[in-house]
């Protein structure tokens, strides 16, 4: 692996490490453009939502509920719950980029999406000696690629406005994207255990309203992973004694 020497190089490393996700972001954001126009939103409305929120799943949720004539308050709450997972991303990023200036952190928060989070944290874990400034540059590199595609393809989808044929099964691009994000993160037995427990709990609690099952499952995964790590540590300590 090439050594990162400058902040600039770190930025472009992030930029290219995130490149594979263009495959997912393009159809997904176009789909949002199409769905939003189908629901009766105009171009300005569609783009404002995409730029202000940049969180696909919650945008789909909000538009779907508003089209179903749900009260604003309910649509808002449901969409926010979908985004609650990002509080966990925010916390997980603190040890790596918490040193940045307040305004920089605010910009990082605005740009926080699943792909950038997963790619960045994986790199931070792989390179514990990465200088803090490079970590910040790397993070922005990730988003510098994803973000324009997100805005641009939503716009394209909204302008073209033609339904993407259902036979393309683009709905499946979402789980495949998250599977591709997960696989490289499974670096130890506790990681595998956490993933397994989280998946199982997500199925068991899928009946909860407003995708609260996701939150329950994710928290279960965190606890499972942490407990597995503690268990292995204790066993190792015993073995050494």
């Amino acid at each position, binding site marked *: 692996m090439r050594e990162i020497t400058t902040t600039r190089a770190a930025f472009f490393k992030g930029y290219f490490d995130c490149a*594979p996700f263009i495959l997912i972001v393009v159809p997904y954001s176009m789909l949002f453009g199409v769905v939003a126009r189908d629901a009766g939103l105009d171009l300005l409305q569609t783009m404002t939502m995409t730029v202000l929120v940049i969180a696909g799943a919650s945008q789909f949720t909000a538009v779907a509920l508003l089209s179903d004539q749900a009260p604003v308050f309910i649509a808002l709450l449901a969409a926010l719950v979908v*985004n609650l997972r*990002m509080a966990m991303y925010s*916390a997980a*990023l603190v040890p790596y980029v918490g040193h940045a200036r307040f305004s920089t952190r605010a910009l990082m928060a605005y740009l926080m999406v699943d792909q950038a989070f997963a790619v960045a944290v994986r790199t931070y874990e792989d390179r514990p000696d990465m200088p803090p400034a490079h970590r910040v540059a790397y993070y922005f590199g990730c988003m510098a690629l994803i973000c324009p595609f997100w805005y641009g393809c939503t716009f394209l989808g909204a302008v073209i406005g033609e339904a993407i044929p259902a036979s393309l099964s683009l709905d499946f691009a979402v789980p495949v994207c998250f599977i591709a994000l997960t696989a490289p993160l499974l670096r130890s037995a506790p990681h595998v255990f956490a993933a397994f427990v*989280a998946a199982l709990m*997500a199925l068991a609690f899928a009946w909860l309203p407003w995708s609260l099952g996701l939150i329950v499952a994710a928290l279960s995964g965190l606890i499972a*992973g*942490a407990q597995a790590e503690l268990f292995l540590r204790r066993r190792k300590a015993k073995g050494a004694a």
Partner: protein
Amino acid sequence: MIDTGDFWLLTLLLGIGTFLIRFSFLGIFGSRSLPDWAQLHLKYVGVSVFPALVAPLVMWPEATGGHIDPIRIVAALAAFLIGLRFGVIWSICAGMGTLYALQFLLPNL
């Protein structure tokens, strides 16, 4: 039809709310370090959130009306196994490729 006032109110509040969720810990903690127990748990955020998102989408896809679709399960497994060995881009290709190939070969399933 979506009411214009409803839309703008929702979009504004959703934008602010989502930002606050994202900024929460980064904003408050900054360079102060999180307690050890928190750091221990936070290592597992990615491996917990992503499988929890994926599992219901693969088991009960909306596109099939929530019915179990063996093709999607096989395609998800393919994406996973290839992802473990070859990385992101091949994982995506394997997942979508397997889905399309099986849908083409087994149109009645």
